[in-house]
């Protein structure tokens, strides 16, 4: 075959067909997907993120949480996701309409976080877990995120935002204070309630 022009046309056509099928069509297909509305309150679903949680989403991206945590609940016949309590229903496309970057993930070295805000709404737990995962989850291989915390000299009054660490973790005379990124990340994690509401295409189980 010496007709490079025809060959070249072949390169273009084979490639373009899949480009249309897998990149262009899905993009168009989802481009017109509207928000749903809560029948009781009329509020948009999925709900918008608070500004602090939006900043937290950025911290989530910057620190690569996605390499160990997924944010998608597969249907009951496709895995143990629902049986493990990671969501009441599978997640659907509409659950990701608010995401600037949709971090559905491909690994479960750690548990799925689609509904971590439902499963664990405690600020104190999340902060301790980020500071040192061994405190809350012994045996975890999640890295400690101590760089999201400041170690400050304790004042005469106890600080409300200081972590309550177990004795072996704390240094007398010093407090461990979450920095702005840590607080934002926790706000984001608590906002993750992806399949906790009804959608017409995927209602919650009764």
């Amino acid at each position, binding site marked *: 075959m*010496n007709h*490079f022009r025809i*060959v*070249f046309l*072949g*390169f*273009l056509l*084979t*490639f373009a*067909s*899949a*480009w249309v099928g*897998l*990149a262009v*069509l*899905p*993009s168009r*297909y*989802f*481009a017109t*997907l509207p928000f749903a509305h809560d029948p009781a309150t009329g509020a948009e679903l999925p709900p918008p993120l608070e500004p602090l949680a939006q900043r937290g989403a950025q911290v*989530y*991206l*910057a*620190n*690569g*949480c*996605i*390499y*160990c945590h*997924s944010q*998608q609940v*597969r*249907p009951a016949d*496709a895995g*143990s996701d629902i049986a493990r309590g990671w969501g009441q229903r599978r*997640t*659907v496309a509409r*659950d*990701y309409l608010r*995401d*600037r*970057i*949709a*971090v*559905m*993930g*491909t690994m*479960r*070295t750690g*548990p799925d976080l689609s509904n971590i805000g439902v499963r664990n709404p405690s600020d104190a737990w999340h902060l301790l877990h980020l500071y040192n995962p061994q405190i809350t989850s012994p*045996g*975890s*291989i*999640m*890295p*400690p*995120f*101590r*760089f999201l915390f400041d170690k400050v000299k304790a004042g005469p009054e106890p600080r409300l935002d200081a972590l309550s660490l177990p004795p072996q973790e704390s240094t007398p005379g010093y407090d461990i204070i979450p920095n702005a990124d840590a607080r934002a990340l926790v706000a984001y994690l608590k906002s993750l309630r992806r399949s906790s509401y009804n959608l017409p295409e995927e209602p919650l189980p009764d």
Partner: protein
Amino acid sequence: MTSASLPYNEHHQETPETGVRLRVEVDRAAREPITALFVTAVFWLLLGSVLALVSSIKMHMPGFLADAAWLTFGRVRPGHLDTVIYGWASASSMGAGLWMMSRLCRAPIRYRRLLLASAALWNVGNAIGLVGVLAGWSTSVEWLEYPPLAALVLTVAFLPVMVEAVSMVRRRQPGHVYVSQWYILAGIFWFPWLYATAQVLIFWHPVSGPAQPPVNWWFAHNVLGLWFTPVGLAAAYYFIPKIIGKPLHSYYLSMVGFWSLAFFYAWNGMHHLIGGPFPAWLISVSVVASVMMFVPVITVAVNHHLTMRGSFGALRWSPTLRFVVFAAMSYTLVSFQGSLMAIRSLNRLTHFTHYTIAHAHLGMYAFVTMMMFGAIYYIVPRLTGREWPSATAIKAHFWLCAIGVIFYWLELSIGGFLQGLALLDEKVPFIATVKLTLPYLELRSLAGCMMTLGHFIFAWSLWRVLAGHTAATGKATLLAPQPA
């Protein structure tokens, strides 16, 4: 036998003398730009390997280097991925691809300075990208973690490679076109299209959230399938017949292999999203296309095997052939595995586990990386006029990397398989699925040490050649005496 089955010249106007003269001319013109690309590639390979080892150790020693934000696992790991993809594998593919193209078209490189600028800019792009990821500007979109600015620099840096490849094709001397030329030209066109489209649709003019993963995996799968694979296969098609001195078994099979790859591979990516919130047709079309990959893979494997038949003895002495044949066999293996992993019932088990990571390394390392090592061992003495310093070093490089990656693949596949079984059983507490993988994660660090050591030995050899410390070409550095 037609001349189209030969990666070297058998055509009418050429005498052996003019053929040799042309090859010398081609290699002289390629000397600076291709050497620059290879040095670039090896630099990023070393850095990427160190980042890989750090990430691997962190998975079983989470406290290791944990106190600096820029060294946290979630930054070092994408740092590893992107430096080896763009820094090492792409730069070496650009170098090896252009050199083979130049030889096959019998057209010396024309835009030498432009390509040197391209190699320099490729380093700038990777440096911006890696610093960006470590500094906390990672996009967290897999295989596209470099901040968009770095991607822009890389795209611009790639353009001269396209221009040069087209120029070579236009200047090619009359005669049959060999299959490697198709693969290289196709790969050189597909890669920037893939990369630029993915950048635009995810970062510059973002599509809505649920449409991002399809674009992401269309890119991430095809950057392997339509960039590294074409250049890797071009190298296998080029070096195997060249070294054993026999024509390719079948020209027609090579055409079937090429077009079926172009047609089916492009549709594969959505098998990474099985179970996700996407329309069923989108996933199904990729599952079907993934299974259809048996066609190009078997075609290529049969063609290479029948070409090699009777010449396997050459693996004893030829460094390039040893790496290339190992890589070609890995390609068959990884493709079979990939087709099976796309089947829903098996994917249910392997999805979200280390099994996928093991599979990815069989593809990007045992196939692509080993192929590029083989190509560099062949090309560099022809560019520099100097031989490799030591057969022992080449052997050590080969065995450390070959045993390292096979061990990596085997043991992490077992770990991932067990992890998958445990994850599917909701009665197993989640933490138990983590703990059971620990021995496999530790063994992976061991495999990583072997491979990294191999890379440093390789870099040492390359440095010796470039510093002019080795013998002038004439008597090739062989792994064993070549039978007469």
